[in-house]
């Protein structure tokens, strides 16, 4: 075999080796990417599981406190009211006793409201939309804001867990409106748009834009917003902020519809 033929064979072999090296790199990288994506999915699932455990634990604690408030503190306050009523009957009408009765009545209402805010009894029994109406009544009684709800019970029901998270998100958003926005009027509209349920919260205070929301999430504190973000992630929902005009700010929660 001449050297010329050997050179041709040699060049062919080296080229084949070079293409093999490139082929190996491509196949290896594909394997690495597949593995990294699997790890990323596992990590996300683990984080979601931790988040679920954390939120569940929070709900159980709220349930416990609500139950103790209602059963212990509420019961004690009702007993005090009874004693005051008896004292009023025995000693005759007295201004101090009347004031105390009024104060007890007020405190009983507040404790009931706190207990209902912590654990809405209507949520499991009557569903999200009725609970939102009940929540509006609580806020209208106190808290200095006027809230209206447009949510028909004929709307598609969501999964019980999803409804609880949406309830909590709306509660947190309204608390933020009361604390920070200076708004006095809040209206909540619930409507179905295709395969999504939208909860549109409009108020007349100062709202935040999506960029501000993202900035607050990364800052220390802002526990309420982080709680909202965690719940949104858990139910695969999204949040949007829109300034309609100087006196109207809209926050919309968009939830994909799941089977009940």
């Amino acid at each position: 075999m001449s050297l010329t033929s050997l050179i041709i064979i040699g060049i062919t072999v080296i080229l084949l080796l070079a293409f093999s090296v490139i082929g190996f790199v491509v196949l290896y990288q594909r394997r690495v990417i597949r593995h990294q994506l699997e790890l990323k999915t596992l990590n996300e699932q683990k984080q979601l599981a931790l988040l679920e455990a954390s939120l569940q634990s929070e709900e159980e604690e709220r349930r416990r406190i609500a139950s103790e408030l209602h059963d212990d503190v509420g019961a004690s306050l009702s007993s005090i009211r009874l004693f005051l009523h008896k004292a009023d009957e025995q000693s005759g009408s007295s201004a101090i006793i009347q004031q105390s009765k009024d104060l007890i009545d007020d405190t009983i209402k507040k404790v009931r409201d706190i207990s209902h805010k912590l654990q809405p009894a209507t949520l499991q029994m009557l569903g999200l939309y009725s609970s939102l109406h009940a929540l509006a009544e609580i806020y209208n009684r106190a808290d200095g804001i006027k809230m209206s709800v447009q949510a028909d019970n004929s709307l598609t029901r969501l999964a019980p867990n999803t409804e609880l998270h949406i309830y909590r998100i709306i509660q947190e958003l309204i608390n933020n409106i009361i604390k920070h926005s200076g708004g006095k009027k809040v209206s909540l509209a619930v409507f179905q748009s295709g395969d999504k349920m939208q909860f549109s919260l409009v108020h007349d205070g100062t709202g935040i834009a999506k960029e501000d929301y993202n900035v607050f999430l990364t800052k220390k504190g802002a526990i309420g917003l982080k709680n909202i973000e965690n719940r949104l992630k858990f139910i695969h929902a999204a949040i949007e902020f829109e300034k309609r005009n100087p006196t109207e700010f809209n926050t919309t929660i968009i939830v994909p519809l799941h089977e009940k």
Partner: protein
Amino acid sequence: MTFIYLLALLSPLFVILLGFKQRFTLLWWYAIAGLIIDNLGHFLKSAKIEHHWAGNIFLLAECILVSFYYRKIIFRNQIIFWIVVLSTTLFFITHTIYYSMRDMNMQAASLLYLIYMGFGIAGFYKLLHQPEIIYLGKSSFFIINAAFFIYASANFLLYLFGTYLRKNDFEFLVSIWGSFFMTINILHYFVIGIGLSKTKTK
């Protein structure tokens, strides 16, 4: 002048035009050098003036530009980089002066191509050990590295035995140069152009 020869002379334009957004980068200057020197060599050959030294100039420029391209990618230690670049450059210059001033120094060039093959393998190794996910089809470095790797692999043996073939089988050298080498040259510029066009502008 055959069509493939003409295409080979103009092939650096692939890089210059496709990679225009990355103009004034190392690979763009590499293409400029290739365009100027290849065409200068052709012009001198047509005018029957000694032209083989132009090939040596191109090989030297290629050595420096390709080394600097790989500098930040595969050399963690800059001292090693300077040792490699200076030693290969000095070796090529002294070998050319001593053995091959008037002819293209194919033997020294084969060593350079062997070094480029090493750069290519090191480049692939670096790619595979990146912490972030890299999709190779979108990676400009992978495309450019593959182009240099194939180009160097194809040319290594050809240049190594180039001097022997020039003396003993000149016809074969001319035919393989005019077909195989030109094709590899055109493809390598084309692929580098594609790779450069995918580079993100800073």
